[in-house]
């Protein structure tokens, strides 16, 4: 697969289909895998593909400096590729200007990340070219949301206590925001003043406000790449928050973010039949 990937990158650059290939690189065999931006065909050798290719590279597609390079190719996993759909729906990229290289993925990390254990998209579906062989299995929603389910089984006071403890540790480094491919606002709401919407200090109050905002801004958008939680330096499990919204979207509207390019974004559309059992 690595050779096929390198060959494809070489071809895309040589034929000038794209100006940059966004993939994974590794400075030494044991070193960490990092994002790699290849602009010359001869550098394609540096691309790697292994179980350490965690990051969701689509985050770079909306960066100004990357856009300035011209049409891009991006290497995606089944989980990442959904981002492309969301970005396109939100007018953040023109699909035809991006060449999507899909990598069949058996899971990242060793042992696999929790998201990989319940993955039902080993094989990308929306890519322009997909490398590798794999068969997807259906994973029932129950299984995909098992961790959330287990957490929700605790009483509300315990959940609140859990978050008070967890969020007290947040240092507001905003790594969760920086790594998120869908946090592309030029000025994040947290940086807004007059009026300030969110208390910017790393107090419990500010941290709650921030994490509620971060999660809800991804309602109907989060593709569950899980990068926010993976990069959190103090290890807060943000996927629980993201999952609660994803499950609500799936249960109430049969909606999974980025799955179907024909479906309009969840927030901003409506149906008279939308459920409202909580409204008196």
């Amino acid at each position, binding site marked *: 697969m690595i050779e096929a990937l390198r060959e494809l990158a070489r071809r895309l650059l040589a034929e000038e289909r794209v100006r940059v290939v966004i993939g994974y690189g590794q400075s030494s065999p044991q070193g960490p895998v990092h994002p790699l931006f290849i602009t010359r065909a001869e550098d394609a050798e540096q691309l790697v593909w292994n179980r350490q290719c965690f990051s969701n590279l689509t985050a770079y597609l909306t960066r100004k400096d990357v856009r300035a390079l011209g049409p891009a190719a991006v290497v995606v996993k089944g989980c990442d590729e959904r981002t492309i759909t969301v970005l396109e729906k*939100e*007018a*953040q990229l023109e699909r035809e200007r991006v060449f999507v290289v899909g990598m069949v993925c058996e899971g990242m990390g060793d042992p696999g990340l929790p998201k990989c254990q319940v993955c039902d998209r080993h094989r990308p579906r929306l890519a322009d070219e997909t490398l590798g062989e794999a068969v997807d299995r259906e994973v029932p929603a129950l299984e995909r949301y098992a961790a959330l389910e287990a957490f929700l089984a605790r009483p509300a006071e315990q959940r609140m206590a859990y978050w008070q403890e967890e969020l007290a540790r947040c240092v507001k480094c905003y790594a969760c925001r920086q790594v998120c491919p869908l946090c*592309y*606002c*030029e*000025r*994040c*709401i947290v940086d*807004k003043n*007059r*009026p300030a*919407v969110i208390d910017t200090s790393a107090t419990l109050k500010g941290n709650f406000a921030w994490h509620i905002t971060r999660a809800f*801004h991804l309602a109907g958008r989060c593709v569950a790449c899980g990068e926010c939680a993976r990069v959190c330096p103090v290890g807060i499990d943000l996927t629980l928050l993201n999952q609660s919204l994803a499950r609500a979207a799936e249960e109430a509207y049969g909606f999974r973010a980025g799955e179907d390019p024909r479906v*309009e*974004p969840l*927030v*901003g*559309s409506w149906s008279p039949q939308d459920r409202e059992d909580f409204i008196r």
Partner: protein
Amino acid sequence: MARIGVFVCWCGENIARHVDVEAVASGAATLPGVRTALSYKYMCSEPGQALIRRKIAEEGLDAVVVSACSPHMHLRTFRRAAEGAGVNPYRVEMANIREHCSWVHHDRGEATAKAADLVRMAVAKARLDRPLEPICVPVARRVMVVGGGVAGIQAALDVADAGHQVVLLEREPSIGGKMAGLSETFPTLDCSQCILTPRMVEAAQHPNITLHTYSEVEAVEGFVGNFRVTVRKRARYIDVDRCTGCGQCWNSCPSKKNPSEFDYRLGQRTAIYIPFPQAVPARPVIDKDACIKLTKGKCGLCAKRCEAQAVKFDDEDRLVVEEVGAVVVATGYRLYDPRTPAAADGISGYGEYGYGKYADVIDSLQFERLASASGPTAGEIRRPSDGAVPKSIVFVSCVGSRDPAKGLSYCSKVCCMYNAKHAMLYRHKVHDGAAHVFYMDVRAGGKNYDEFVRRAIEQDGARYHRGRVSKITEREGKLIVRGVDTLAGEAITVEADMVVLAAAIRPAEGVERLAQKLGVGYDAFGFLSESHPKLRPVETNAAGVFVCGACQGPKDIPESVAQASAAAAKVLALFSRDELSRDPEIASVNELTCAACFACERSCPYGAVERAELRNGRGEFLKRTARINPGLCMGCGTCVAVCPSKSVDLDGYSETQVYAMLKSLT
């Protein structure tokens, strides 16, 4: 710092009984930004307003809080009063200490405490009110009327007679609408064409009316006072300016056996045709699917015969842009097709009535053509199957109407009257014929209407059966109509030669698409929604768009005409001004921070958000941004709620203001 005056009203005893107004006023006086606070017995009275004006002048106030009743009651009053003394009207706030306080809380301590809170919130908001100016937009004094039936013609003539330009749009080749095909009209039995055709000619010849027939609305941009409507003029294959309407072409056309739309398929027409002899304009169109030249490349007889050389086989659809200040929708109705489900819930239509299966089961508009002197039988009642004169006819009411099980729950309103008329016309023409009417109720509300129905029954011998028809079958050339007479309590069977179904009235085909283009709401059945069912019956929630006639709900001719004149009056009121001023409490985008995700665009009920580009002074592209068209924004604020970077705000209800109100309570 703001200079705010707080004016606490007693409303006589209404407020003062349960709220210590003096305490509220003295408490308010200590709030930041408040220069003066006082109470008065009746703030809305002239002396009360004078007091406000005097204090504004004395204290140099720049904002006012009136602590009194509901803003829905008197905000406008106090805004005017303050404006009179030089305070921007959008810097006037009200604290509702009557409806929301003294009238509902009778514990004086609690009520006074709440009133103080409400004043605190209003003061916090007033401190942050920006002075706003009403949005002024110029008005194009030109109206487009969509639909050239009797309602559209009436509205067009009314506006045109008042001296303004009108663009009258009609989808069919001729104006006249459904009324042009009717035989005689209830309750006077005067001839429909005799009263309508002069109006059609008048509309066509009116110097202020531009007519587009065979045309539809393609797209609508803009807003009240400034609409740009793109009209698709369908290819007619005739140069209308050259054509003299002599008739050589349609008289020579060899393709003669095409079902006539105007006769609802009971008659036939040529491929090049005018829909009916009195058509306006009296210019033919070519049916491109029936024309031998256009389908097979041969023939062209009409072109050879045309001395004016008006036939253009290479004609194409054309798009024309019309700039208008207002739009009147008068797209009328069509009849429900009894064969089809009325709603998409899988419940079938009235297949059991055999419409479309038995040639002699027809709908009521088809019967109008049979009864019309200009119709396919020249006004003789002859049944479609064999041309025989039917000796008995069954008229079935409420086919589709008032039947929630089949999907249409409403009453079509005009069927009771035309059933009586049909029975009457039939009996006048076929003296020994039997006219049976099956009905649920006879609804004959209207001037001389009930008398008319009585006449049908008592003088003309129509036989009325109160009950519904269950099934229509055919046996030996007779239609066997089985139904029930609920008054007699028995099942009855009538052997009929012909059956006329009073199919429900539905809005015209495609009206939903038009409504979406115009931003007008419509109900579950597709009827357009008026702003208020009683007080604003011809206005819609899209400013500058008005409705009249059956597109808004089932209606007869007098009602449609009355509504059309009402719509015209509303248009004229709009045109009586040079500029329109609109409430400026609308949304605006901080274009520098907008991330151009266009969540606002997707959420805006009015299509007021546009995709724009931000450029610098030299015209170089900087970034993309959402932009709000102030002409279209109605100020709901949905965009504010969905904007992730909070780059949109709403004047009058800004983020800062809401937060300040919350803070004032801590």
